[in-house]
């Protein structure tokens, strides 16, 4: 039986010729990631069990992004603990306020993930890096402690769902719409424990940012990981970012999949996930009248330059509706700078938006835009469970940057097709 991309990477990292779904393995990891919320718990466990050395100074990345810049005294103590640990073990990849970005926007940008690598992180959206043809998955703080200490971690080999992509997305449709469409179709546990593997003739029509957005939300379908075949687009992205040798894996022609799902990208409409599950999707044509109080443009899902570009193109020369708060979160310092140079930040501010330093902020109900009782937010984030962004009686509608910007202009969930882009 042939292997899927994910199975091939796991086999290689476990030192095996072949693995099958359900098999339990121990695999070497290339990178271990943690943030300011999950790392302190990992450090506690690491120290409690008497570990006093790490698997490699360059194999661990700690990014302070959730409650940073610190939202209160307790959050400051958590960041301090991370800082001290990183200093003690001389970790190369420690990102503090001023250099940090939202972790899953930062790592690809910095060339920290290459095709064929195995990346694990104490954050559920670690699956993002599968966009680059790596096996990448989220786990917990105890796992992080174990991986930091030993450089290895246990896995159960997943079976897979293959998504055969064809066609080209239409003007206002991007990776966010595609993945919301998929989650709406298969459900929040539709890929539970499985790999979501993406390929096909339409792959070339998805940018790297589209793929990062899609892989980011694999967890929202319950998947263990999402992974994209590696093509010229991937290689062009990695050129200049990654200078170490890497291995490109393609799925075997006789790899087995539990399901093969064909996706015609040209048929996908702008899509919105209504409260309170990412699977509760509707196309933009069926949203009805939903007035809103807040818009969030950013996050590890959609905080990249292309996301800001599309939002800026809609907001250029226009003003958002009074009474709607629109907060923009560039994902990293580099994205912030590039957006500044391109004039996007000026566009946002003149339109009446607030522009923030990179942070996860309101996505998980942390800070920088929490919702009051009865408030509604259109967000380019990845989850809309009860109480996710604030009060238990607030609502989050997940959408693309295009829909989010259009909604800020309309004061309700709106179709970007109704607006003309002022600038290409």
């Amino acid at each position, binding site marked *: 039986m042939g292997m899927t991309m994910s199975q091939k990477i796991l086999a290689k990292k476990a030192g095996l010729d072949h693995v099958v779904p359900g098999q339990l393995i121990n695999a070497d990891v290339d990178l271990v990631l943690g943030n300011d919320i999950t790392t302190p718990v990992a450090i506690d466990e690491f120290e409690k069990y008497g570990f006093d050395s790490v698997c490699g100074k360059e194999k661990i990345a700690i990014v302070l992004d959730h409650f940073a810049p610190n939202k209160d005294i*307790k*959050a400051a103590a958590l960041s301090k603990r991370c800082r001290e640990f990183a200093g003690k073990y001389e970790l190369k990849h420690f990102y503090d306020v001023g250099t940090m970005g939202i972790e899953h926007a930062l790592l690809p940008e910095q060339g920290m993930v290459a095709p064929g690598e195995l990346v694990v992180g104490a954050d*559920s959206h670690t699956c993002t890096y599968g966009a680059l043809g790596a096996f990448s998955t989220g*786990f*917990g703080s105890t796992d992080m402690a174990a991986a930091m200490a*030993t450089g290895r971690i246990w896995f159960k080999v997943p079976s897979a769902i293959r998504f055969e992509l064809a066609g080209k997305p239409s003007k206002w449709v991007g990776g966010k719409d595609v993945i919301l469409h998929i989650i709406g179709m298969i459900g929040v546990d539709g890929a539970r424990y499985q790999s979501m593997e993406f390929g096909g003739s339409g792959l070339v029509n998805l940018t790297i940012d589209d793929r990062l957005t899609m892989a980011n939300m694999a967890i929202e379908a*319950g998947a263990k990981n999402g992974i994209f075949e590696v093509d010229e687009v991937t290689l062009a992205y990695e050129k200049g970012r990654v200078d170490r040798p890497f291995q490109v894996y393609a799925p075997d022609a006789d790899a087995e999949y539990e399901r093969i799902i064909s996706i015609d990208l040209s048929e996908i409409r702008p899509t919105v996930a209504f409260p309170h599950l990412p699977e509760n999707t509707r196309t933009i044509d069926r949203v009805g009248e939903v007035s809103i109080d807040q818009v969030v443009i950013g996050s590890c899902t959609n905080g990249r330059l292309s996301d800001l570009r599309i939002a800026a193109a809609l907001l250029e020369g226009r003003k958002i509706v009074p009474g709607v708060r629109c907060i923009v979160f560039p994902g990293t310092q580099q994205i912030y700078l590039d957006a500044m140079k391109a004039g996007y930040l000026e566009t946002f501010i003149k339109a009446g938006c607030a522009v923030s330093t990179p942070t996860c902020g309101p996505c998980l109900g942390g800070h920088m835009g929490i919702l009051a009782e009865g408030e509604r937010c259109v967000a380019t984030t990845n989850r809309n*469970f009860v109480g996710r962004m604030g009060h238990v009686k607030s609502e989050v509608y997940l959408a693309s940057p295009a829909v989010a910007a259009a909604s800020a202009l309309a004061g309700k969930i709106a179709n970007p097709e109704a607006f003309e882009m002022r600038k290409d």
Partner: protein
Amino acid sequence: MTVMGKAHKYGDHIDTDVIIPARCLNISDRKELATHCMEDIDKTFVERVKPGDMIVGGLNFGCGSSREHAPMVIKENGVSCVIAKTFARIFYRNAINIGLPIFECEEAGGAIENGDSVSVDFETGVITNHTKQETYQAMAMPGFIKEIIADNGLLNAIKRKMNS
């Protein structure tokens, strides 16, 4: 080992944000953190739960974030185990890693009701509903995972192997 307690029943897709809201994740003290368990869907849980009790869920229990705080606060409240029709994978993993026993059982997750008196045999995975006079068989855990639970967590298991 067999545990006995009352079932606290919840529905499908109980996510980690309702098990422990993100706004609480700056709390380091486990006891304080545990007082917020389930508060966004059931403020009375922490008052009603007694050591040995079980949480029973439907599909996809523990979906959402990877926060280990979720199984941690459940365990800290004295819950002996979690029974659900199916589990989300990161929660499942985290529960095993911290030594919180979990039992995946479609039948039990459906049939057990809130307040039922339940016992679970950890060795066999047989779940007995004393209120309804029914038994259910949970899925067997692979040996590797049973070892981690028997060692009361992943790091104990790693240390034990390192020392032997």
